């Protein structure tokens, strides 16, 4: 169990780090997904600690996964629209956007 | 036999880890996708071994879902991500 707790914290850090450090929107979306997975992992590992298996966090994570896919879909839709509007590679900090 | 199955699971897991090398090295996108398909097969095998080992039929359902969705991944890949006309489909479907 301790192993998975450590894994959750490590994933949390990787996700946060990627979210802040990477400029490209696609990578930010991937980092957000890793981050949510880490939170789910934390919830389930803590649920594991109870004497009787607690199904409430499991149900929460189940809804959370479905919510995550909908936010990912909306984010990707926005990203693709942004690319079409700009006509260039999608990045928050490429040279064109910094100058204009 | 119950000693054998965990060992096989570890072997399959190592199989996945070694296969990650192909994702890392490429060189083409097709190689990476092929490696991803191999991971699906190994994951199915692991789920099935666990299903028999722990007597949980739900894990067979998990293997079924894996099998169905590995097909989706490959088809999306050849059709959308690597279709050869990446930028030329504009205007065909958009007003």
């Amino acid at each position, binding site marked *: 169990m301790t192993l998975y707790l450590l894994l959750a914290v490590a994933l949390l850090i990787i996700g946060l780090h990627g979210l802040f450090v990477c400029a490209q929107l696609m990578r930010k979306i991937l980092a957000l*997904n890793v981050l949510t997975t880490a939170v789910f992992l934390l919830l389930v590992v803590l649920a594991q600690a109870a004497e009787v298996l607690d199904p409430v966090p*499991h149900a929460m994570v189940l809804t959370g996964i479905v919510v995550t896919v909908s936010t990912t879909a909306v984010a*990707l839709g926005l990203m693709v629209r942004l690319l079409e509007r700009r006509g260039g590679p999608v990045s928050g900090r490429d040279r064109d956007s910094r100058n204009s | 036999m119950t000693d054998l199955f965990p060992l096989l699971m570890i072997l399959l897991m190592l199989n996945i880890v070694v296969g990650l090398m192909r994702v890392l090295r490429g060189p083409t996108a097709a190689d990476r996708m092929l490696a991803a398909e191999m991971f699906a097969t190994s994951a199915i095998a692991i789920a099935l071994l666990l299903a028999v080992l722990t007597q949980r039929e739900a894990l067979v359902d998990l293997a079924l879902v894996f099998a169905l969705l590995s097909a989706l991944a490959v088809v999306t890949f050849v059709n959308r*991500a690597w279709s050869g006309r990446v930028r030329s489909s504009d205007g065909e479907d958009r007003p």
Partner: protein
Amino acid sequence: MGAPGLAFDGILGAALLWTAWQAIHAAGLFRAVVSFMVFGLLMALAWVRLEAPDIALAEAAIGAGITGALLLSALGRLDWEAGRATDECLRGRDRAFWVPTGLLLLAGLGGAAWLLPAPGLGEPVAAELGRSGVENPVTAVLLNFRAWDTLLEIAILLLGVVALWSLGPTPWPSSPELVSPALPMLGRVLFPAFVLVSAYLLWRGSHAPGGAFPAGAVMGAGGVLMLMAGARPWLSGDVHGPWRWALALGMVAMLGVAFAVMTGGHGFFEYPVELAGRLILLLELAAGLSIALLLFALYLGGEPPADWETRRPA
């Protein structure tokens, strides 16, 4: 499983960390996306090891399947092979920030796990399970004890679809790009299997891991596969089409049941014990169907063209 189990978990954890790192920092976007798909796959195995088969099913169908399809499709719209040059991450300069932050997070979460009381809703749920109408505790929580959460979650899915439709027509081409006779064949062979597995998962949900979420996700993935195989979907952007009603079906059914039991003198979502099993089955059917359609609409990423059904394949 003892030592072999621990070894398995260790390798799994290392592979998860590696794929997560690659998903964010790999050179080249395609490698990142494939790594993320592998991450989802391995995560499903991790859920199995954590005694959460319900989550494993949903993760396999959604995390590894539909999210992967979405990411790959979005990648097709990006110039990902030429775009490598602009794809930079800041590196190496910020260790002084991230190492202490990581240690702080570790200490905080470890302390929280150590000090906070263990989640103790397991016993109340087990005690009430007999009155919920189903045998699977997760389904009981999802559609009976905390049906409120599920209602809001379907509302979020609906909201996502509304947001995407308001962005304009779907950005993906509607016909298969690769002309291969194998593709329609694959669709014809696999789609019945998708329907079968989806119905089976829905039926199993009342007494074993499964239920509306994985069933809906598998069904939605089947729809995406058929779209890819060149089938013309019956949905369209027509304002008066049945499509919009079908999308709202899950939401309408849940609200309808919630208010119907209120007229019988019960609380919001407080089912009468003798009817609970049937009401949950009804809700699962409606929610499963609705989740499948909503996920398919989310995959489309925009309003489907109005003349889709009549358009000839390219």
